[in-house]
C-alpha cells in the first residue's frame, strides 16, 4: 500500500513561511507548531490542512490585531516566568508540560490558549470554503473470546444509541467488512465509493492481527493498517530503548527526542503493511512516545491508536478490533515496563474476563474520542460483541434505525444496512 500525495502536500513550500509566523506568537504556542512544521512531510493531510489553515488565520490578523489578541497570553507567560524556564520552543517536551502543569496559572493559561486558537481558527474558517461532510463509520469488534456481559456492556454508552440483537454468527460482520461478498462490498470498497482515496481515510487497527489476516482480494484503496501483534519486534526493541530512560526529565526529553529522530528503518522490524508508509511509521513512534499503554497492552494500543488517528487524520472509516491479554505474571504489575517474556519464562495464560472488562470501556473511549469533533453529527458507530451476538449502534444526527431494536437481525442484513447508511 502506498501513500498518495494530496493538495496540502503539493503546497509543501509553506512550512518555511509559517515558521516566521510562529515567531510572532506567544512562546508557549510555539513548541507544538514548530514540531508539526519540522515533521511536515509525515503529517497526515488533515494535519497539514489544519496547520495551514491556522497559519492562514494568523495571517488574517494585522500585527496590531495579533498583538491585541495575544496580549493576555503574553502577560500570563510573564507572570508564569516562562522566560526563566528551560522551555523548548522546538518541540513539545515532558519538561515543557511539567513546567506548565505545575504553574499556579496553568488553568488560566489553558483557557487563554484555547481562546487564541479558537479566534484564529474562526478567522481562518471565515476565509475558507466549508466542505460538505460525508458519513464517518466507526466499526468496533469485541471478539467472541471475550465474555462481555451484555447486561452491563452498553449501559454507559451514549443514550442516543440502540442495543441490537444479532441472530447468531456475529463474527461474520468482521469478515464481511474485511472481505465483502457478492452484493455486499467490503469496507474498503464502501470507503472508495464514498469518494475516499487517501490511505489515511481508512484505518484498520487490530489487537491480534485478525483484520490483516482477512484482506480483500482486490482492495480498491490503500489503508492505514496497524496490528499490535505484528508490531511485536518493533515494540520489543522500543521497550528496550525506553527502559534506558533515567529518572531525570532533561535526560528523558533527550532520549525521547533521539527516539523520535531515529528512523527505525534499518532493523527490519516493521511489518510489511507499515514498512512502506513513512507517515504510518512516524504515527506508530509518536503513539509509543505518547504513552497511554500503547506498547504495554494490546487493547490500550487499539484504543489509543484509534483515538490518535481520529485526532490527527480524521478518517472517514475506522475498523478497530480488540483482543485478549494474558494474565499478569508474578511481576507484571511490579515491573510493568519490562518485557514480560524476558522477566519470566512462565507461559502466557489468557485472561478473558479481565480482557473483556478492558475492551468494553476502551471501545467506548473510541466513540468518545470521535465525539469530540464536529463531524460527530455525521458519525455512525457500531460496536459488536461477538460473544453474545449483541451490538450497540449510534446513528448520525437525524437518522433513525429503521427497524425495531427489539427484533433480532441477521449479520448480512445488518452489514447491508450499515453499508447503505454509510453511503447515504
Amino acid at each position, binding site marked *: 500500500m502506498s501513500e498518495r500525495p494530496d493538495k496540502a502536500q503539493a503546497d509543501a513550500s509553506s512550512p518555511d513561511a509559517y515558521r516566521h509566523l510562529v515567531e510572532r506568537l506567544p512562546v508557549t504556542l510555539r513548541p507544538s507548531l514548530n514540531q508539526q512544521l519540522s515533521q511536515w512531510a509525515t503529517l497526515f493531510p488533515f494535519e497539514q490542512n489544519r496547520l495551514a489553515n491556522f497559519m492562514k488565520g494568523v495571517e488574517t490578523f494585522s500585527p496590531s490585531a495579533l498583538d491585541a489578541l495575544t496580549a493576555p497570553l503574553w502577560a500570563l507567560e510573564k507572570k508564569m516566568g516562562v522566560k526563566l524556564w528551560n522551555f523548548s520552543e522546538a518541540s513539545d517536551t515532558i519538561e515543557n508540560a511539567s513546567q506548565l502543569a505545575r504553574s499556579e496559572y496553568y488553568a488560566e493559561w489553558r483557557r487563554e490558549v484555547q481562546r487564541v486558537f479558537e479566534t484564529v481558527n474562526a478567522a481562518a474558517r471565515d476565509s475558507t470554503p466549508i466542505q460538505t461532510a460525508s458519513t464517518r463509520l466507526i466499526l468496533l469488534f469485541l471478539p467472541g473470546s471475550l465474555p462481555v456481559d451484555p447486561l452491563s456492556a452498553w449501559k454507559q454508552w451514549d443514550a442516543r444509541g440502540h442495543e441490537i440483537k444479532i441472530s447468531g454468527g456475529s463474527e461474520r460482520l468482521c469478515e464481511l467488512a474485511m472481505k465483502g461478498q457478492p452484493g455486499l462490498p467490503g469496507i474498503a470498497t464502501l470507503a472508495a465509493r464514498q469518494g475516499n482515496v487517501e490511505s489515511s481515510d481508512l484505518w484498520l487497527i487490530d489487537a491480534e492481527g485478525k483484520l490483516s489476516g482477512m484482506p480483500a482480494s482486490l482492495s480498491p484503496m490503500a489503508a492505514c493498517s496497524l496490528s499490535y501483534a505484528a508490531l511485536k519486534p518493533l515494540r520489543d526493541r522500543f521497550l528496550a530503548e525506553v527502559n534506558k530512560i533515567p529518572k531525570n526529565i532533561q535526560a528523558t526529553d533527550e532520549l525521547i527526542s533521539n527516539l523520535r529522530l531515529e528512523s527505525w528503518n534499518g532493523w527490519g522490524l516493521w511489518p510489511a503493511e507499515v514498512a512502506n508508509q513513512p507517515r504510518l511509521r512516524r504515527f506508530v513512534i509518536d503513539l509509543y512516545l505518547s*504513552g497511554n499503554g500503547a506498547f504495554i497492552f494490546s487493547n490500550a494500543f487499539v484504543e489509543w491508536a484509534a483515538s490518535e488517528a481520529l485526532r490527527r487524520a480524521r478518517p472517514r472509516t475506522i475498523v478497530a478490533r480488540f483482543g485478549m491479554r494474558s494474565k499478569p505474571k508474578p511481576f507484571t504489575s511490579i515491573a510493568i515496563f519490562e518485557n514480560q517474556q524476558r522477566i519470566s519464562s512462565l507461559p502466557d495464560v489468557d485472561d478473558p474476563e479481565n480482557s473483556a472488562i478492558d475492551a468494553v470501556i476502551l471501545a467506548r473511549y473510541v466513540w468518545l474520542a470521535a465525539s469530540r469533533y464536529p463531524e460527530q453529527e455525521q458519525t455512525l458507530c457500531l460496536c459488536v460483541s461477538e460473544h453474545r451476538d449483541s451490538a450497540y449502534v449510534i446513528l448520525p444526527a437525524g437518522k433513525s434505525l429503521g427497524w425495531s431494536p427489539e427484533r433480532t437481525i441477521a449479520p448480512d442484513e445488518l452489514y447491508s444496512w450499515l453499508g447503505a447508511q454509510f453511503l447515504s
Partner: protein
Amino acid sequence: MDASRRNLLKATAILLVDQWALSHGQAFATESSSAAGKDERKVIVVACGGIRRAETFSDSGLGNIPHLYRELLPQSVFYPFIRNAGATSHYNTISSILTGNWQRLDDWGMTAPASPTLFEYLRKRMDLPQDSVWFISSNKALTSRIGASSIRDFGPRFGANVVFPKQLLINAVIRAASQGHPEHSADRAAMQLELQAMLQNADNYEGLGWSVSGEESILDLRMQSSMQQAIEDLVRTNAPVTGDEFTFLVSAEVMRRFAPSLLAITFSDVEVAHFGSYSMHLAGIRTMDRLVYELWNLVQALPSYSGKTTLFVLPEFGRDFDGSSTNGFFNHRAIDDSTSLTWMMCLGEAARSANVVERPVQHIDLCPTIAGLFGVKDLELPGKTLPGLST
C-alpha cells in the same frame, strides 16, 4: 493472594525491618525509647494514588470498596469533597499533603519540598528521633527527597525514614532479567546468584533510593540471605505479587518494631491505569480497600497503637473523566472535578463521633490538622484545621 505467597512477602518484610531494628538496637516498639512523648499519640496517613469517585464512593463504585464502605465508613468522619487545588502529580501532591502548602516542584522528585514537612515540624518541635517518623511508599514517581524540605532551619536532620519496598522487588527482577536468561526466573539456583550479587553490591543497595537513619550502604549478610530467599520464591510464583501488598507488610513491621508517631504510606497499584488496563486498576482499588482494612485491624491489635491512633485515608487525586482529551481514567491531568475532587476518611482517636462533613476541604488542610493533633500549633500554614474532628 494465596497464604503461602503472602507469608513469603510477610517474611521478607519482617526480615527487612528486623535489619533496621537491629541496626538501631531496637527489638520491639514496646522496648523503644522513641515513642512520641508521654502522650504517645499516633497518626497514620494513607494516600492511595489516583482514584475517581466514580470507581469508589458512587453508586457504581461501592462494589470496589466493600471494607471502606461497609466496615470503616460507619465509624469514620468522612469528607466526601476534598479538593486537590495544586498540581495533580504524585510528588507535588504528596509534598503538598506533608507540608500544608501547594508544592510546585519537579514532578520527578529531584527537588525537596519547598516548605517544611510534617516530619520536620514534629521532630523539631517535639524533639523526636528519626525512627518516629516514616514514609513508606510503593510509588516509583517519588524519591527520598520527600522526607525533608530544602528549608535551612529544617531539612534532612529533621527528616523521615523513607523506604520504597516495591523498588527492591523491581530491582531484583530487572537484575535477574538483565542476565539474558529468562529461565533464571524459574530457577532457584540461578536467581540466588542474581540476588546475592544485587544485595551485596553497595551501588545496587543505594539504587533503591531509600533513606533510613544510620543505615549502612550495604545490607548485612543475614539480611542478604533472608531477602535472597524471599525474593527468589516470589519470582518463582505463578500469580501476581503487588507492590502495595509488600508496602503494607513492610509498614506493618515498621509499626511493630518502631511504632512511629507519624507514618505516611502511599499505595500505587491503581496507577496501572496509566497503561490502560481498567480491570487491573479496579483490582488495585480492591487491594487498597483490603489493605486499609487490614491496617486498621492492625492498629486495633497493636498495644502501641490501639486507642491512640488517628488514621487518614485519601486518594491523592481522582483521574480524568471518560471522554476527556487526556484519555479518561489513564491519566490525572485534566482541569476538572473528576481529577481534582475526591474523598477522605478519618478513623480513630480524632474521629470519635462518626460524621459526614459535607463542607469541602483541601489536601493542604491535613498538615495543620495533624500537627494540631500532636499539639504543634502556630505553624502559619495556608490550610485550615479539618472540621468535625476531636483534638
